[in-house]
C-alpha cells in the first residue's frame, strides 16, 4: 500500500503566515507538498463554514495560520 499522503487545506493570513510561506520559498526550505494554501486577509476571516466545507470535500486536515 502506498504511503498515506494527507490532503491539507491551509488558510493563511496575508500579512503573516502567507508572507511566511513566501519566505520559506525564498529561503528554499523544503517541506512536504501535502498542503494547498488559500490566502485570506486575516485568519479571522476563516469562517467555521470553510473548515467544515474542507472536511466535507475530503480534506484530511485543515491548518489555519495567522
Amino acid at each position, binding site marked *: 500500500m502506498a504511503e498515506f499522503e494527507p490532503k491539507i487545506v491551509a488558510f493563511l493570513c496575508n500579512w503573516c503566515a502567507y508572507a511566511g510561506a513566501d519566505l520559506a*520559498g525564498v529561503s528554499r526550505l523544503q517541506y512536504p*507538498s501535502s498542503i494547498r494554501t*488559500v490566502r485570506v486577509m486575516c485568519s479571522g476571516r476563516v469562517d467555521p463554514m470553510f473548515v467544515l466545507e474542507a472536511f466535507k470535500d475530503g480534506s484530511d486536515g485543515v491548518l489555519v495560520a495567522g
Partner: protein
Amino acid sequence: MNIDLVMCSEVKSISGDPGNFEVSLVNHPRYIDPVKCTGCGECARHCPVTAVNQYNMKLDDRRATYIEYAQAVPLAFGIDTDTCIGCGLCENMCIAKAIKYDDAERESTLKVGSVILSVGSRGFDPSGLDYLGYGKYTNVVTSEEFERILSASGPYFGHLMRPLDREEPKSIAWLQCVGSRDANRCGNGYCSSVCCMYAVKESMIAKEHVHGELDCVVFNMDMRTFGKDYEKYYLRARDKEGVRFIKARVHSIIEVPETGDLIIQYADEAGKMKEEVFSMVVLSVGLQVQPDAAELAQRLDIKLNKYHFVDSDPFAPVATSQPGIYTCGVLQGPKDIPGSVTEASAAACLAGAELAEARGTDIPKVEIPKEMDVTDQDPRIGVFVCNCGINIGGVVDVPGVKAYAETLPNVVYTDENLFTCSQDTQDKIKEKIIEHNLNRVVVASCSPKTHEAMFMETLEACGLNKYLFEMANIRNQDSWIHSKEPEVATKKAKDLVRMAVARAATLRTLHEKVVPINKQALVIGGGVAGMNAALSLGNQGFNTVLLEKETELGGFSRKLHHTIEGADVQAYLKTLVDDVSGHDKIEVLTGARIVGFEGFKGNFATEVALDGVDKKRKIDHGVFIVATGAGEYQPKEFLYGEDDRVLTQVALSDRLEEKGADGLDSVVMIQCVGSRNDEHVECSRICCQNAVKNALHIKKLNPETQVYVLYRDIRTYGLLEDYFTEAREQGVIFIRFDEDAPPDVRSASEGMLVTVKDHILQQNVEIRADLVTLSAGMRAEDTDEMSQIMKLNRNPEGYFIEAHVKLRPVDMPSDGVFLCGTAHGPKLITEAISQAQAAASRATTFLAKDAIKLSAITAKVDVDHCVKCLTCVRSCPFGVPEFNINEKVIEINEAICHGCGVCASICPRQTIHLSFYDDDQIMCKIDALLEAEGT
C-alpha cells in the same frame, strides 16, 4: 508617468543656475529605434555574430544585436557596432522596422531645475594583482562573476559550476578586501562597506545551490557586518550553516594544473603558514568609481576626494560643491543597497525642495482608459503561466500546466512566459485581453504579495477592472519549496491554477474610494534626524509639527562634540535648531508626549499632552515621521560605575574637551561593550569609529599618550577606514581579542590593570591604564508607550521596523508612516541626516497629492438583513463597525476598515460581505481543490 528615460546618452556640460539649468547631452546611436522596437528578439535570434556577454561578466556569449537582460527598461534591443558585421539580416527580419543602420551620434539639450548625479561605480578589476592569479587561473573569479554564476539568468542558469570544467565545486574560498583597504597595492585605502555581507550571502546561496556538501571559507581581516540585523545574518552563516571565517590575508594562490584546484597559502593569526586546497576562489572585489564617472564630475566642477568619491560635507551628505547638483549612491561613498536607496530619496528631497513652487506643473496626466462593463458577461478567463527564468520552469512542467489550464472551465486563453513581470509580457497580456475579450485574468507565477499590484495595473491600463485578477503562487509556495520533486511540484501547480481559475470566475468589479489628504506632517522626535525631516518638509512647503519629549531640541547629539571628520556638532546643532525654530512652516512642541492616536493614511489625528499645559492638544496630519532616536548603553561590565577611571566614549570625549589629554600616559579602549553579545546580538555600527575618533583626538592633544584599542573586528567602513589607518600610523595599538576571552579589568592604586590575550603573541598581556574607555553600544529610546498607542512595530532591540530593508528603507509598513535616524538602528549623524531627508522625501510623495485611493477590499453590511446583534462591533480588532443610533444601523467606515474580514466570518446572519474575499470567493477554492482529485 512623470519620469522620462533618456538612454545611451552622456552629459557634456551643464550651464545655468539652480532652478534653471541647461544640460547638453551627447546621444549615442543605438541603431535600433527604441520606440518602434517591440522587444520580440527576432533580430538577435537571426544575428550570425557571436559577441562576449558583458552583462554576464564575459562568462557567456550574446549576439551583436542584443538586449542586456530580460527585464531591461526600456525593453528595446541595440546593436553593438564593435562586433556587428553589417550583414543586414536583423533589418530584414524586423517586422517593426526598428533597425536604423544609419543612426548617428546626436546632440540635444534638456532644461531642468536640479540635477542628481548618481553614476555609481563598478567592481575593482583585480587583473593587476598577480599574486591572486586572476585571469591566469580560470577557477579564480570575482564576486561579480560569481553573482552571475549563481543567477538563474546567468551563464549557467543558476547551476553552481566552476568555469574551468563546469564541475560543481566541493569547496570555495572568498578572499575579502580585494581592491579595498589596500593603499599599497591598488591605492584604494577605503573599505568598500558591502563585500563582507555579500560574501556571507554568496556563501549561503552557494551552499543552497549545490547538490552535496560545500565547504565555504571567507578569508578576512575583519568581518564588517555592521548594518541593521547584519550581525545575526553573519552568525547564522557561521554557527548554523557552517561557513568558516578565517582571519588572514592570503599570501598567494597557486593552481594545481591537473585538477584546476587552487592552493591557498596564508599565515594564521599566530603567524604560522598554512595551506588549503579549494575547487574555486572568489575575489570579493571592492567598489570603485570609474574614470569616466570621475571625469564627468570634474567636467561639472564637482569636488571629489582622493578616491574620486564626491567630497561631501558631513552635515550635507548628498549635496555637492555645485549648488543645485546633488549626489547619491556609491559615487557619494561606498555603500550598500539600503544606503543607496535612502540617499536617492534624500537627493530627490533636496532636488525637489528647490523646485517646490513648480511642483506638478510639468507632469502629463495619465489617461486610464474607460472601464469596460463586464457585469453581465460570462467569465472569459485568460491564464498566463510564468517560467520565471528557471525558477519555476526548471522544476514545474510549465507547458503541462498551461495545457491543463486550457481544460478548465471558463478558460478561453492560455500562455506561458519566460518572465511574466517583464515589460514585454505586460504588453502581451494587454494585447491578449483585448484580442480574446478576456474579462478575468489569472497569472500563475510568484507571490501576490510582491506582484499582484503590478499585474492589476496592467488590467487597468486596458480598461479591465483591476479586481478581476487572481494569482496562483507556483514559485514561492511551490517550485522553490519542492525543487527536488518536479512531479509533485507540477501536480501542485495544476491544483493551484485550478483553484485560481475557480476563484477568478467568481470575481466582481470593485471600485476604490477616494479620500482627501491632510497636507500637514507630524515629526516625532526633535533630534538631528527629526529636525532635518521637519526642515526638509518645511522647505518643500508643507506645514509640519515637530514633537520633542524633552524641553530642548537636539536629542543625543547634544552630547557630541565633533564628527570623525572634525566637523563641529554643537555649531551645526545650533544652526539647525535656529533654522527649525525660525521656520514659518514648522511648529515645535517640546515637553510633548503622545497620549492618543487615530486615523489612517492622509488623515491621522494625534493627541499630545504638553508639560505644564492641562488641555491636551489634537494635531491633524496626513503623514508622520518617527525619529525617536537612541542613546548610549549604560555598561554593567568592566567595573563601570564602580571605578571612575572607567568611562564611556561619550564621557571620554567630554573629558578631552574639558581637560585635554594632560596627565594621561595610557588609555585602554574596549570595543563591543553591550553589542555583539548574547543579550544584544547586533553590532552598534558607530563604536569603532568613535574609538578611532577619540584615539586620534588623544594623540593630537598628547602624542605621548599610549592608546590601546581592544577590539573583535574593527568596523571602520567606507571612508572611515582612512582614520583607522591614520590611528595606526599615529601609534595607536589595536589588539584583537576573542569573543570567548574578553579582557579582564581590575582596579589598582597605580591605575587600571587590563589583561588581554594578544593573538599575535599568543599570550596574555597586561596593560596599565589611566583610563579605561568602554565603547558602549547604542540603545533605542524607550518607545513602549508611544509604539503601542500608534500601533507601530519594533524589533527585539526596540528599533522600529521598515517596510522593506532594501526597497523601502525609510517607509514603515503602514501607509503614510516613515522612519529615520537612530530610531531605525544605530547610525552616524551623516547617515541620520540623509535618512531624515529621505523620509521627508517619501512623505512628500503623499503630501503632494490632493487625494488617495483606498483599497476596495472592505466589509459592507447588508442593512436589510442585519439584526444589530453587535457581534461585529465587539469582534473587530480595529473597532471599525459602529452602531448609528439615529439611523439604527451598523456602519462600517471603509476608509478605516482594514479588510481583515473578521466581521464577515463572525456575523451569525452572514450579512457582512468582504469585497474580493466574499464567502463564495473563498469557498470555490476549497471546492475546486478537493473536488477534482487525481490530476
